[in-house]
């Protein structure tokens, strides 16, 4: 299943936040969306998953999601969004309880996603007992449990310290190597974008417009930390963004 964004424009009251965004998210691809803060990239992601309605334009689903898919467009949030009153397994079971699955099938899915995210020993733990990285792993396990067609990730690593971020980034790369998931990944971190993105979309500051789309052909597994080609791309992205970021930084926040 592919996604296609056509002429997305959005405004809050009189303030235009997104202007004429056209973008394709193809199956098996990770599309990273970067831009200065307040450029509407998170808003755009919410529109892709149907959590917000654009003022004009539309998001199209091209083709059908796989038959076993329970929730085609599935989010991973920056703040994890775990229910504090449910254990790790309870948080995963929450998103399965609305589907016609018997207890055994549900249990099988939970055991499987916990094993894939190396969380099997923490089934009965409450979120408050887990570190930030572990919490985000639980959120990833929860997202995988509904067998999504497209993962929508809203700065999933931004709330974590830099070491944990490295570890989780490796996990995301490994996971992609194994399962070739499709994803839209919003971030303000250029290093994350060049490490994970097959396609990097650079948005301008408000109103967010697509300034450039950079494609990186290098396979994810080859993208090591000291790679001249990636660094060149990262530098190029920074040059694109620097003035925008500086101008965005000087803007008054009145939202």
């Amino acid at each position, binding site marked *: 299943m592919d996604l296609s964004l056509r002429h997305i424009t959005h405004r809050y009251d009189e303030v235009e936040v997104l202007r004429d965004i056209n973008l394709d998210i193809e199956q098996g691809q990770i599309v990273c969306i970067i831009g200065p803060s307040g450029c509407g990239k998170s808003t755009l992601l919410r529109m892709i998953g149907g*959590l917000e309605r654009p003022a004009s334009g539309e998001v199209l689903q091209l083709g059908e999601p796989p038959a076993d898919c329970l929730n085609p467009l599935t*989010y991973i*949030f920056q*703040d994890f969004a775990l229910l504090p*009153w*449910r254990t790790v397994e309870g948080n995963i079971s929450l998103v399965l*309880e609305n589907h016609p699955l018997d207890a055994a099938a549900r249990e099988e899915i939970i055991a499987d996603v916990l094993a894939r995210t190396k969380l099997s020993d923490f089934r009965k733990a409450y979120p*408050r007992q887990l570190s930030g990285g572990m919490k985000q792993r639980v959120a990833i396990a929860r997202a995988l449990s509904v067998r999504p067609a497209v993962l929508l990730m809203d700065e999933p690593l931004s709330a974590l310290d830099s070491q944990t971020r490295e570890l989780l980034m490796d996990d995301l790369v490994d996971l992609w190597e194994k399962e070739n998931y499709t994803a839209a990944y919003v971030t303000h971190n250029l290093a994350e974008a060049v490490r994970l993105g097959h396609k990097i979309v650079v948005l301008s500051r408000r109103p967010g417009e697509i300034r450039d789309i950079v494609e990186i052909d290098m396979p994810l597994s080859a993208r090591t930390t000291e790679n001249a080609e990636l660094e060149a791309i990262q530098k190029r992205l920074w040059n694109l963004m620097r003035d925008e970021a500086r101008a965005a930084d000087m803007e008054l926040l009145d939202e």
Partner: protein
Amino acid sequence: MSDETVGNQITGKPVPYRGGGFLPKSRKIVAPIVFILIIAFWEWGCRTGFISPLILPAPSEAFDAFMNLVNSGLLWQHLAASLQRLLIGWFSGTMLGIIVGTLIGLFSIARSGLQPLVSAIFPIPKIALLPLFIIWFGIGEGSKVATILFGTFFPTVIATYGGIDNVDRGLIRMGQSFGLTRMSIIRKIILPGALPAILSGARISAAIAIILLVAAEMIAAEYGIGAYILIAGSLMATDQLITGVAILSCIGLIFAWIIGKAEKYFLKWRA
């Protein structure tokens, strides 16, 4: 830094500690000691004549009055009548309050229609409405239960919708993003999220229920702790009055203890 100072022995001064404090802890043994000291002082004051018996009866006299109450078998009748009114009034007031509070928390129409009404009626002392309640619900149990019901209803409504307003919108959005039904979101995300506020509302409404019990039993109540206190008051039987008040205080403590247990059980995820 020059070599000279390194060579010399510099006598260091420890950095003075200025953190800490502002973290009161409750130490278990202090409360009983304070309690016993006050009672002991009170008893001592009465025995020595420092406190005139006209002003305040001795704790031992109040205890004698209590034993009279126990021996005559009237204690249980008073307690049974009061507890029945308290539990029915408080339970139905709280339940209705949670329902209406949830409606205000979830629906725009309920919010715009009922919230101002609740704000308008909440501050009215329900005691002032007692004559109306008697006309509406009869002079028997109806008006007494209604007074407690109305008194506990409003704080519960406010606690409930306040709790719902404070549920993390991110969690609700998460529920929507996973395609949870509206009912599931309410049952599994919003109500558990509002539960801490609802329980602290229950704490307040339990205290209000006990306060209103005395008011409700002012009129035409044969039995009841409130009635017992009022009769004692009108006869200037201050020893009985102290006994009755102490019983009410114990009921309040037991209620608070039960709600504390419920908080421990339902909110163990907070720790």
